[in-house]
């Protein structure tokens, strides 16, 4: 287990095709584990039986579980960009999980600073010194200590890497693979 590793989960797609990937990086953002799923093409029967809930079901039960089963290196925190998988990610991995996005907010006082927002479970975390704070959404019922710990982990990581950059690399890799090319 890499103690300072950050994990990234991305699941995207359309009604007819869903795919996912998980990346674990070291403190520099260098990949130490990467798995991706084959594109999931839901059959007609599943779409009929599950109806509108199929997308959530597929993300949570088919893609997310497969990725977590396949990842060999546990990160100290999982970062995702999809609210649908935030709670299941925390529950299944038993590792701190956060939905992280850029925010339009002006920079907070200093790196490591955390502010609450009007939305429950959503905080502003100033992890880096050069940029806007992150909008950090936590699963329901999050403990204040866990928010503080997450803020500390992100602040430490932001000193050596660009926290959100791995999402772009994951997208790029998935698009490349989806185009039929072999990496």
């Amino acid at each position: 287990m890499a103690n300072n590793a950050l994990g990234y989960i991305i699941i995207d797609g359309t009604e007819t095709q869903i795919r996912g990937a998980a990346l674990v990086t070291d403190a520099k953002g260098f990949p130490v584990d990467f798995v991706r799923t084959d594109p999931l093409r839901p059959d007609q029967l599943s779409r009929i039986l599950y109806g509108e809930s199929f997308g959530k079901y597929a993300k949570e039960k088919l893609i997310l579980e497969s990725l977590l089963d396949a990842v060999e290196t546990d990160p100290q925190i999982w970062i995702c960009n999809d609210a649908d998988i935030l709670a299941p990610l925390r529950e299944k991995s038993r590792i701190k999980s956060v939905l992280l996005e850029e925010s339009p907010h002006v920079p907070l006082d200093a790196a490591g600073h955390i502010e609450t927002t009007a939305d429950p479970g959503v905080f502003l975390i100033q992890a880096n010194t050069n940029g806007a704070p992150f909008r950090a959404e936590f699963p329901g019922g999050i403990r204040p200590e866990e928010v503080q710990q997450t803020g500390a982990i992100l602040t430490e990581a932001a000193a050596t890497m660009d926290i959100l950059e791995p999402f772009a690399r994951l997208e790029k890799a998935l698009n490349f693979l989806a185009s039929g090319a072999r990496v």
Partner: protein
Amino acid sequence: MGLRDFIARRVSRRVDVYRIDDFSVEPPETVSIKKRVDTVRLKPEIACDVSRPFEFSEITEKMKANAVNVKLAEKMPKAHNHRIKHFVKEDVKTHTLQFTKKPKTWSLLKQLQALPQERENVLKYMKKRPETLRNEVILACYGPIVEGGVLKLALNKQRGTLLVWYKAGSRQLKAKYAYLIRRLGLGGKPEWRWE
């Protein structure tokens, strides 16, 4: 026609008219040719016995519908005025429902390690310039980058970003910022400076 009628017609051109109130002809007997078949309630009523709620995972792979000891009707329904020639007595068929399976996962670590990280120019966020660059024009600033772990750097001039390739296995963690600068007064080429 009697004589009286004959004379009455010839003489007075009149004819007696009689009302007949009593029909003695019986209407013909009618026989129903309608065929009627009794309907029988199916028993027992088929119901799903679910003693606990299903989880998604329990029905992800396969779900098989089983019918055990199901008699659709106790006896054959009666047909009145007709003989049943054909009675369909089919067994309850079972079908295996194939749900969407979990997708296969692939580990592609080496391939992803070959992809560079992309750093954006963070100059606009810089609150103060480094003391050592007081006499230089700062064109761009990229970071944080662990200088000791860098394998290769490349400036993406179209996007204005810096591509960073790290060496695999490097344990360096001291991060710096890469500044693209131009020295004042010399008119020289832009150069890189780590701070």
